[in-house]
């Protein structure tokens, strides 16, 4: 869903500068997603935030739909072969097709390539300067 928001930003923001910001953020998002994605398992290793399942090949996740469109082959698509749970997420297709994909070539390649053993660590700050967390999301938020 974040990718759809970023694609809307990339295409529909008022100024060229703002559209470029959307493109930059979208490219960074794809880089992060493709870095963590395991094409051998056709799954993300987690941890998951707002994960609606454990196996992206067995239910329609929005991320799986984006990756399926990016790789454009059935065998590499991390989604059920036909219908399956959360099929209603396919309603995002119209928006995605209208906005189009904007994914860095190197990241696109890594969504289908051989997976080598990797160890990745990310430190995520509790808050960002200027950001306001939604009330109730964090124990210490206002």
């Amino acid at each position, binding site marked *: 869903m974040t990718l759809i928001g970023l694609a809307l930003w990339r295409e529909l923001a008022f100024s060229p500068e703002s559209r470029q910001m959307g493109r930059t953020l979208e490219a960074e998002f794809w880089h992060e997603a493709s870095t963590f994605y395991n094409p051998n398992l056709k*799954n993300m*290793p987690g*941890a*998951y*935030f707002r994960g609606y399942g454990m*196996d992206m090949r067995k*239910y329609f996740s929005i991320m799986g739909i984006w990756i399926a469109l990016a790789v454009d082959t059935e065998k590499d698509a991390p989604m059920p072969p036909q219908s399956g*749970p959360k099929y209603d997420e396919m309603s995002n297709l119209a928006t995605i097709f209208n906005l189009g994909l904007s994914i860095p070539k190197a990241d696109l390649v890594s969504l289908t390539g051989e997976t080598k053993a990797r*160890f990745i660590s990310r430190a995520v700050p509790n808050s960002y300067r200027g950001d306001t967390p939604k009330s109730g999301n964090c124990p210490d938020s206002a």
Partner: protein
Amino acid sequence: MGGLWGNRRVWEQIKTGMIHWKMGNDDIGWLLIPGNGKTNVKVSQTTTSLYLADPKTTRFDIYVYAQNAGLDAFDESVWALPGMKLTVNTTQKRVSVESIDPAIFEKEQAVSEHYSAITKVVFELPTSWDDTKPLIDIIPKR
């Protein structure tokens, strides 16, 4: 393997730890640590380790999907699952190993896809536990 340390929101849509593997029959096996706030998860290149996050915790749960693995596959120190052997190092008391109703699991853990069987392993902690020491180490080996 993937893990999250410092989850700030208790929510079934957050999965703080997991292991995925190929089971050899074109199916994916997995181990799930729920985002219930009880534990922190640390992953090294060889091991998934759980640590105490909430000092009020008296029990913690681990969920496993491994098709056709009977309960006898879950030995005290080795879980011999299809396609993966998990060595389990812990001094915690194992309270139960049970096959649970997949429908209840799917609802409680916000998992959309359907499974034929899910195994739940429950451990009990002593009244006080040093949160710098791992509650349990899980070491996968194919």
